[in-house]
């Protein structure tokens, strides 16, 4: 029922439906052109200041460095492994305090966990999966910059095949950089039973915020897995953050989709996918696939995987 209703009612239709209220102040310790803080700024536009942001160690930890905070909302830094556990404690405390009438129900808060991919896909996965399993009513923004960026770009579980990181540097022995395929966090959440799971991109704010707005109807864990461009970590000029995100989506590398109660739907299907090469070549982390000689095989492999994904998904959609 709920799933069907959600498919029908698009709530944020154009860029003009995005509220101009701001809940993130400028001046944070974020790199110029940071895709992650843009994602947080966008989601908070809809969640508002009656929210507590619960964080695990990562770039975002420095969004709040005493005595400054970028958020109009509340904030709690926990530790790297346990932001969803912090969310659980706050949720439970609010529920029981309201039930016991120790606080007014108007004091209730949205709970938004914000972590990087390192916390989301490795050290924090245990506390995340169990929070999903308990059907904890919370929002999770996983800004995925595909490496441990706060410590200088070491490989995580979501680092893509072929990317250079500071612990998977391409060498003559290992010319690909990262040889592993990334963990599919979307599927992990879906299979754990989360009622709402979405992939988003700050380059597609209408798609992103429409998902957020519609997900407000759903009680339980809600993931927004956001591919977030990282100028120093991906090695491109800060001005290109939106473009990089757009190329990721238009090439099909990053599929925009959602799963409502387990039913997966692509919310944007590029009409004609551009070659993945367009996405790869503007990022320094893939430079070794092009220079000094082009690694055609690797690029073709990446293209093949993307094509295969879409062939399967689109076929399925029909």
């Amino acid at each position, binding site marked *: 029922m709920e799933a069907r209703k959600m498919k029908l009612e698009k709530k944020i239709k154009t860029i003009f439906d995005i509220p101009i209220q701001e809940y993130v102040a*400028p*001046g944070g310790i*974020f790199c*110029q052109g940071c895709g992650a803080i*843009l994602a947080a700024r966008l989601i908070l536009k809809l969640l508002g200041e009656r929210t507590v942001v619960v964080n695990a160690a990562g770039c975002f930890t*420095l969004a709040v460095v005493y005595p400054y905070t970028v958020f109009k909302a509340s904030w709690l830094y926990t530790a790297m492994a346990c932001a969803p556990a912090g969310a659980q404690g706050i949720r439970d405390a609010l529920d029981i305090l309201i039930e016991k009438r120790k606080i007014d129900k108007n004091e209730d808060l949205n709970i938004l966990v914000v972590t990087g991919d390192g916390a989301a896909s490795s050290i924090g996965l245990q506390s995340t999966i169990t929070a999903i399993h308990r059907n904890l009513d919370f929002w999770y923004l996983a800004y995925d910059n595909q490496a441990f960026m706060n410590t200088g770009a070491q490989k995580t579980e979501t680092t893509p095949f072929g990317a250079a990181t500071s612990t998977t540097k391409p060498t003559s022995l290992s010319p690909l950089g990262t040889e592993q395929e990334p963990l599919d966090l979307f599927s992990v959440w879906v299979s754990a039973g989360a009622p709402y799971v979405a992939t988003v991109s700050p380059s597609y704010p209408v798609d992103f915020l429409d998902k957020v707005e519609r997900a407000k109807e759903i009680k339980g864990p809600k993931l927004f897995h956001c591919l977030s461009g990282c100028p120093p970590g991906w090695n491109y000029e800060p001005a290109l953050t939106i473009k990089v995100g757009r190329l990721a989506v238009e090439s099909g590398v990053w599929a925009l989709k959602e799963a409502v109660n387990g039913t997966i739907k692509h919310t944007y299907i590029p009409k004609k996918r551009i070659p993945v090469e367009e996405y790869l070549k503007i990022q320094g982390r893939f430079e070794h696939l092009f220079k*000094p000689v082009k690694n055609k095989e690797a690029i073709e492999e990446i293209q093949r995987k993307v094509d295969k994904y879409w062939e399967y998904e689109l076929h399925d959609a029909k």
Partner: protein
Amino acid sequence: MIKVRFHGRGGQGMKTSSRILGTAAFLSGFFVQDFPIYGAERRGAPVVAFTIISKEPILERGYIFDPNILLISDETLLLDKQTDPTKGMSKESIVFINSNKNEDYFKEKIGAKVIVEDLTKIALEVLGRPILSTLIAGVAAKLVGIEQKYLEEAVKEELEQIGANEEMIRKNILAATIGYNKVQEVKIEQTESLEPEVKVVEVEYNDPEISTPVISFVANSYLKKTGTWRVFKPIIKYQKCKSCRLCYVYCPESAIKWENNFPVIDYENCKGCLICVQECPLKAIEIVREGE
């Protein structure tokens, strides 16, 4: 002993500058320490690095409070009260500032020997990006009197370590040499340590509202005025603007406000990422270099 302090912004390469100077001094046969301050390093954010060069073993650790030479990669850093790059400087200190202004502009404000060169311009010409590590290392090496061959060797060694290719190394050796030849060796006045005398005091108990790292004045980060991070400044040409909102929505940290149906850039806070320039479909946002 010569104490050199480098002030710059994340991404400009100050850590590399301090290491190149350290390596060059090491190759010249001196005792050396170099050290960057890490942690909140972000592209564009203020960063500090140090190099100490000595004929004797070095009994120093950590932050250099009393530099003989200060290298400031960006004049806007002088406005940053938190960083306060000239802190601990004496009348004998030598201050190098990367700026397109002239020396007189800074002389009175700083009250020490000031050398000014526009290294960003050279960096853009030679390297194509505003990365100053090798240029500043070149300036520093000359000021302290290191031979050019050791500088070149050090540039090569340090850049190889961070994975630069041959072309980049060649360009950077050229940049370092240009920096080297822009300035003259200076006589360093050996002074007693200027580390200030301090008084040890009692710390009383305060109530938890105060004595816990809690912030109750929320969304106050605008007070930091990260507009000083900018190297390039976006300027909206309103006659071309059709209020499409893209620049506003894509501005990562809300440094573009939406007022009276038009975008307004908050220059006190805009870090100069230039996403707005890149994304404007009407090319209604122009770029000028900061200070021009």
